[in-house]
């Protein structure tokens, strides 16, 4: 993503560490069964997402639209169709019980949490930085790291190529026709050249990389160096406090009574 935006403190956190912390948080969230606790933690994460990614409010709101969808749809499925004892409402196949309602909200908030964590990460981390950091801190093999970076470089090229195939089709006289058969034909006409072209290009890039003396050893120098700083401590601290305070608050001041 090449959108100009202010670089906040979130950008200065070591990318591997950031990924690791957020992963741990995701796994922790899998084990949170208490709705109040879940809401508190989610709020803490949303705070970071909304205020500190350095992107404009407009963009943030735009990006949040699919979130809300996920929140609603995930919750609703469970609310309408979940198991439960205390019946609140019944209509045809739909039965809303207290348990299913609470569970639905819980699942919804969890989805929201995951989404916010993920976006916070991808909005504040350049992939190239992440892979450099993974090579340095996690000892990821350069073979994988550089392949990923090369592949990510190919994304805009693929998009461009998609555009170009469209243009090429236009030149060759191919834009007309609707209906299932023509859609099938179009999908085939786009996907096969795109995929086979990408594979050939990938292969050629691999050859070019080897021609530039790339070897899969770890004793190489790095253009970007990543270490740890006080921002990293602050980042970890924030989440520890969030987990503890969230827990405390959920017991002392529950928002929803269960």
């Amino acid at each position, binding site marked *: 993503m090449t959108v100009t935006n202010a670089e906040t403190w979130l950008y200065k956190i070591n990318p591997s560490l950031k990924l690791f912390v957020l992963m741990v948080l995701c796994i922790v969230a899998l084990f949170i069964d208490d709705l109040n606790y879940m809401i508190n933690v989610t709020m803490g994460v949303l705070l970071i997402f909304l205020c500190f990614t350095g992107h404009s409010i407009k963009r943030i709101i735009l990006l949040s639209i699919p979130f809300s969808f996920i929140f609603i749809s995930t919750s609703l499925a469970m609310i309408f169709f979940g198991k439960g004892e205390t019946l609140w409402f019944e209509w045809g196949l739909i039965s809303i019980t207290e348990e299913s309602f609470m569970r639905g909200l819980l699942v919804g908030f969890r989805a929201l949490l995951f989404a916010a964590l993920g976006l916070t990460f991808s909005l504040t981390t350049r992939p190239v930085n992440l892979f450099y950091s993974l090579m340095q801190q996690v000892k990821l093999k350069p073979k994988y790291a550089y392949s990923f*970076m090369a592949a990510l470089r190919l994304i805009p090229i693929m998009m461009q190529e998609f555009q170009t195939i469209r243009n090429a089709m236009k030149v060759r006289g191919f834009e007309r026709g609707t209906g299932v058969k023509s859609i099938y034909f179009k999908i085939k006409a786009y996907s096969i050249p795109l995929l086979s072209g990408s594979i050939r290009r990938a292969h050629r890039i691999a050859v*070019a990389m080897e*021609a530039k003396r790339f070897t899969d050893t770890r004793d190489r120098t790095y253009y970007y160096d990543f270490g740890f700083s006080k921002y990293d401590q602050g980042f970890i601290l924030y989440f520890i406090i969030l987990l503890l305070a969230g827990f405390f608050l959920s017991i002392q001041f529950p928002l929803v009574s269960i």
Partner: protein
Amino acid sequence: MEQIISVEKLRMKFPGEESMIFKDLSISFGKGEKVLLLGPSGCGKSTLLQVLSGLIPNSIEVPLKGEKLKCPSSWGYVFQDPDSQFCMPFADEEIAFVLENLSVPKQEMKEKIQHHLHQVGLNLGAIHTSIDTLSGGMKQRLAIASVLALEPEVLFLDEPTAMLDPEGTKEMWELLKEVGRDKTVIVVEHKIDHVLEFIDRIVLFNDEGQIIADGPKDTILSRYKNEMKEHGIWFPGVWDEYVKNHAPVRKQPFTDDVPLIQVQDFSGFRNKEEKIKVNELQVTSGEWIVIRGENGAGKSTLLHALMQFIKTSGTYALMGTPIKRVENPTEHMTFVFQNPEFQFVANTVYEEIAYSLRIDKRPQQEINERVRSLLKVFRLEAHWGKHPFQLSMGQKRRLSVAASIVKDKKLILLDEPTFGQDSKNTFALLKWLEVYRSRGVTVIMVTHDDHISKNFATRILTVQDGNVIRDEKVIQPGCMEPKFLNIKGVSCR
């Protein structure tokens, strides 16, 4: 002289192909030699270069055997296609990648990157520039810069200047002369004007990939002129000879009542930035317009704007109708992309050419006839069953032209259609275009080749920094019958 590269009795064959590309080829190179490999398009020069460097079979698995294969240990390779040799998103990171591979300390990197970029004359505003926004020629410079960063003993150069403007080509060879002084350099190049000062030995190949001559530059150039001519290899003075032996081309555009193209205050945008601006331009049928200008000036962008591939503003009328209201602009014009690979949509060479005709549901027999005649004109008969990506660079280029012009259109736009072409194929293409032009088709062509502007163009547009700064008519227009666009059944011989 110490031999640092040599192959003996090399045999090689691409999987699934019928015949071998090399059969018992032997060649060797001494330390410090500067050698030019010359041969018709598709004879196997690029492939041989890959074998000599060891890329085949170490990185690309192709069946091959030989009695002796000796590859150098320190080498750099500039590939023919500038687009797919980068693995990082930004220019500085790409060179840094090379430096990392060599374990250059981080502190020294910035300076070295700047040095190498400067060395190849790539003056970017900031070194941290996205590679995707560079023009074709700029990318080729970057490719050379990253190879120089390897500080190699042997340089393999596969048409390193194919996409550069004349000024850039000259500079590049001067640069290579400078940096290559103490290196062994093996070059493949079709445009030989500037290379000749640089090299001291020439190897000539024929269509079958056999060596027909190998020796000092001057001997080869003076003794093998006929062989070179016969095989369609560029040699100094080809153009003069061509012009002498062919009646001067008639340069007579038509006069139309309504201009074919009419634009005013016309701009083309890339990422919302104005990249080309044309104040006024009128194009009539039967013109042959050459667009020239430096790398990155906006030539391709101008063609894209005319094709409506990108966002444009201002007035633009095609045959009197505003372009927005022309239902199917591509019914009237066709386009050959700068990078041929970008336009391939079919799985075989044959189907690639037949593609437009099939969409039109033309009868099979007609398709067959047309495709065959084009395969012949563009010398692709032997390769009709291959996948377009398996062709050599020049063959790809020819295929992209053939596929775009298979249907008769009033307007043909071509983006550097002759780069990487041997002389035989270049003249075949130009002659073919001239036949069409003389029947009223308009040709708009981006090219760096001044010979084409001089001998074929009726009009020359010069683009600089996104503006059309000059518009010269080469001859007075208006001496032929107006608008005869009926070009059915043009024979191409």
